[in-house]
């Protein structure tokens, strides 16, 4: 498996997909802060061109990290099954389980690297371009990232699993969207009538990263304010990781090329 991971690292470093994804992410981050800075400078009544507002945009929408978790491996590995490189790896005797786990580990490493670079660029550009830099929004941003990391990792694994197993790209995207958006929203509405659905909903990333995080201009009301909230984020993420790895191993080991 080590050789397979090394080859994937080599390919990611030599290929263009990772750099395209990194350029798009960094461009977006810089674009947001430049836009806020320009608006703050030239629009007289614009009160959002601040360091706190910029960082709170990130903290208030942590589900974006979960999306990032699926998008990066999609950029890296989406074509592997179609262009025939995966069948080559199998022909050379690399077990399907090792291919799946190898992809997960490599994708996690590069996505985490990208996340770190993105966060540094986010805070750095906001610090340089926007007024009133302060520590509290940075702390909240880092806490939110830590709490979202297990769920983002589960999302990453699910993305790789769908890319490896599902034949059609659109079907894979629909399944992913169903897992992270449609099913939780359904549970939310049914949970208004049936308590059990509401309880399950609380363990879904859509709930604890989206609906239980409030980052406002003058205060924070976040799930990680309490130890129980942090534990729920981490536990839910770990459960997701375990489930998707198990499903991945079980389905991919019988997958025909």
């Amino acid at each position: 498996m080590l050789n397979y991971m090394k080859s994937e690292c080599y390919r990611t470093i030599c290929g263009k997909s990772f750099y395209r994804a990194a350029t798009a992410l960094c461009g977006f981050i810089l674009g947001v802060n430049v836009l806020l800075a320009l608006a703050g400078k030239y629009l007289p009544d614009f009160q959002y061109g601040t360091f706190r507002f910029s960082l709170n945009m990130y903290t208030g929408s942590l589900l974006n990290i979960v999306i990032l978790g699926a998008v990066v491996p999609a950029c890296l590995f989406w074509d592997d099954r179609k262009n025939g490189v995966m069948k080559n790896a199998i022909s050379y005797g690399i077990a399907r389980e090792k291919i799946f786990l190898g992809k997960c580990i490599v994708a996690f490493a590069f996505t985490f690297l990208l996340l770190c670079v993105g966060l540094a660029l986010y805070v750095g550009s906001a610090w340089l371009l926007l007024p009133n830099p302060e520590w509290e929004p940075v702390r909240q941003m880092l806490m939110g990232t830590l709490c979202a990391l297990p769920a983002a990792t589960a999302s990453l694994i699910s993305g790789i699993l769908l890319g490896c197993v599902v034949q059609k790209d659109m079907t894979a995207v629909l399944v992913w969207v169903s897992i992270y958006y449609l099913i939780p929203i359904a549970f939310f509405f049914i949970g208004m009538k049936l308590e059990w659905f509401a309880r399950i909903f609380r363990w879904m990333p859509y709930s604890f990263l989206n609906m239980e995080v409030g980052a406002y201009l003058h205060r924070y009301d976040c799930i990680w304010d309490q130890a129980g909230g942090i534990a729920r984020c981490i536990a839910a993420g770990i459960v997701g990781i375990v489930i998707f790895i198990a499903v991945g191993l079980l389905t991919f080991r019988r997958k025909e090329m």
Partner: protein
Amino acid sequence: MEAYVAETRELTKHYGSFCALKQVTVSIRRGEIYGLVGDNGAGKSTLLKLLAGQLFPDSGEVRLFGKHEKRELEAMRSRTGALIENPGFYADMSVEKNLEYYRIQKGIPGKQTVEEVLELTGLTQYRKKTGKTLSLGMKQRLGLAIALIGVPEFLLLDEPINGLDPSGIIEMRNLLLKLSREKNITILISSHILSELEHIATVYGFLQNGCLLEQITAEKLRKKCSDYIEIQVSDPERYTVLLEQKRKNTEYQVLPDGKIHILNAGGNTEEFSELAGNAGVRILGLAKYRKSLEDYYMELKKGGAKRC
């Protein structure tokens, strides 16, 4: 050392309700170039994919280098190279980087391996080109180069001459012969272009509708396909008596329409016309024929159509 590099026993594979392979048993000895012949949909690619581990059999067994357990098979596959259907490479990476990727993946030490394979396949001058800018023939070469990384002992090639120009076909043929002779690589090559296999194969396997019709060495096949004389005489019975008496070693067949096929005549028609003339048997027709691999295959197919 194992006598058989690859074997299948009663291998069966279905795609839904369609039976792609029916109890196929093949044995490939070390050093052989095994030509797998069959029409489109005969099951050639399926058999290769099963050997490469890309598909799982419904029943039957695959053995590589004498091993058949799942983990053992995976380990044995590291001794093989495969080019099945489309060559698998990254389109936005250069030829050289694609080969380096597979070198690392196979755990082969030393970067000179890539140089060797580039040279062997004639890709040295295209090393910096990205996969997507290569012509169809060059893509096939890259696929072969990937399969050859680390000099495998067993090479699985599924219609490797597809997309090659005439000179490319000759180069590919020479390369395969060179690999077989110099590096003793066992090759399983599938094709529906019989004339191509005729130049290189040492053993043939004929597939039709998922059935293996026959497995035969090239030598035996050559004997079966050698020159023969077809002679039509006024009195076939008398002529066969003459053959028995005066040409004792002659192998012949009497066809239902009275025509006689003299199989080991060596192409000499005169002595057989003289034999008839001297005995007063009138010759109605005499011609020399050569049964080609195509003829043999077509005959085999006709017979196979009843079996499969």
